[in-house]
């Protein structure tokens, strides 16, 4: 059928009767980054939660490698290879760095865990340096690395990321984005929600603009960046603004406590 790793169609979901998603569709192929952008409260985080099973969809479908997985609990989806790095609560704070990685490996069959842990440790030297430190005592950027490692150790085929650059210094954010490109190289499909919409769209082969729980626009990242409506409404810029931008002018960083 299709080569989609993840296919979401007409997804409806919400919290205790309050409908947040009212028909969202997206797809991600292996080795491709897709970006989801949109204003605060559009339902971006809810979309990731509904895909991963943390929030139960009311209508619509989530198809993972050709299998309908709509409404499966998160642990089953993780075992099938869906990884999710939430925005804020993304590490186990009272566990050490090494323990965080070990817990991430629980999604794998017992026999595969040791090797997967070793390979993630080899990939991120930081984990070895700080293996015995409690994750709750790390800086924001360091936490992101542990959070990524916690998800990657389960060898996901699709990775959902909620605002990977939020709260990071521009330099740390660039490191995370560089890491994501490497992850993509390995054939992992990435669905990324980002506040830094320009940077995200530039990295992505496709972008989706979410507004009021619906997909308002979609298209190749570069095209969305040039679409005057998208720029005006969602990128907070002037439509004709094609001048080279200062490095971080689009990074709206807001220290919200909600994820």
């Amino acid at each position: 059928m299709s080569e989609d790793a993840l296919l979401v169609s007409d997804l409806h979901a919400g919290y205790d009767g309050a409908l947040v998603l009212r028909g969202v569709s997206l797809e991600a192929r292996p080795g491709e980054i897709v970006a989801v952008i949109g204003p605060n409260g559009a339902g971006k985080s809810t979309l990731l939660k509904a895909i991963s099973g943390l929030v139960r969809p009311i209508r619509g479908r989530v198809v993972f490698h050709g299998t309908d997985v709509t409404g499966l609990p998160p642990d089953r989806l993780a075992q099938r290879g869906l990884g999710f790095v939430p925005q804020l609560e993304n590490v186990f704070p009272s566990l050490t760095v090494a323990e965080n990685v070990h817990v991430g490996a629980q999604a794998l069959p017992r026999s595969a865990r040791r090797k997967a842990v070793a390979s993630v440790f080899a990939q991120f030297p930081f984990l070895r340096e700080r293996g015995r430190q409690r994750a709750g005592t790390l800086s924001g950027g360091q936490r992101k690395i542990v959070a990524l490692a916690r998800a990657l150790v389960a060898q996901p085929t699709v990775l959902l990321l909620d605002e990977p650059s939020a709260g990071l210094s521009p330099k740390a954010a660039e490191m995370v984005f560089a890491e994501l490109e490497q992850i993509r190289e390995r054939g992992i499909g990435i669905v990324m929600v980002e506040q830094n919409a320009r940077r995200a769209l530039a990295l992505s082969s496709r972008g989706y603009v979410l507004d009021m729980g619906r997909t308002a626009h979609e298209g190749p990242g570069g095209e969305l960046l040039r679409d005057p409506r998208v720029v005006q409404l969602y990128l907070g810029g002037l439509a004709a603004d094609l001048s080279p931008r200062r490095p971080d002018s689009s990074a709206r960083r807001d220290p919200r406590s909600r994820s």
Partner: protein
Amino acid sequence: MFWQLLANGFVTGSVYAIAAIGVSLLYGLLRLVNFAHGDLMAFGAFVSYLANVTFGLPMVLSLPAGMAATAALALVSDLALWRPLRLRRAGFMSLFLASIGVALVLRQMILLLWGPQPRAYDVDPFKVYVIGDVRLSLAQVATILVASAAIVAIALFLARSTTGRVMRAMADDQALAQLSGIDVNRVILLTWVLAGLTAGLAGTLAALVQGSFDPNFGFQLLLPVFAAVVLGGIGSAYGALAGGLALGVATELSTWEGLAGGVEPAYKPVVAFGVLIVALLVRPQGLFGRARIV
């Protein structure tokens, strides 16, 4: 006198610590303040009594019997009550009230089965061990040995075993644990088993040290056990162990004459809560608890 009090404190404290571990884990994983924990301990003590006195088994066999029965009861309580409540997304207050209900039912059941009269295990109450100027009864010596071994085993289990690690991870963040591929219902069942085993152990040891016990004795242990949990930082597994030991030792040592004459032994519970209040004023999150970020 100091060493005698320290030894007594360790005996009491280790019982608190072992019971507190279950309370803390249940809170960490389920946000359940288990008001029935004292009665779970009493249940374990009475099953041990059944094995020891009614069936005439030695304590070495009666204790595991009491622990196993308590674990089974805890397991059934999850399947029959707590899991359905979770599925209905019962809130904190509903869970708390339900646990009060379980406490009352358990206590009445124990009363019905064993009657209100005080009981005692079939152990020699007059056998005394003397080490230096410390005098310990057989029950105290047995408790020190068994409790030390148990505390080391529990701490190792939590620190090193995969299941222990997963339990701590779930206490930190249940959603993230699920996203990591962990079947939370399975881990919760294992937690109930651990809580039951430790409650049965603590209950039997407490009964053994006390000498005589009645169906209400578990409830009397509940407050100091809760205090130990809060002192250690509620939800923290290691904290519960430390909190229990600290509370037991502090309570007993408070009667030491070297300490400005010491307090009247009758005021020991007051001391326990004094320690708790002062500790919480200094460190509101408890010894091992995490400070709230928001």
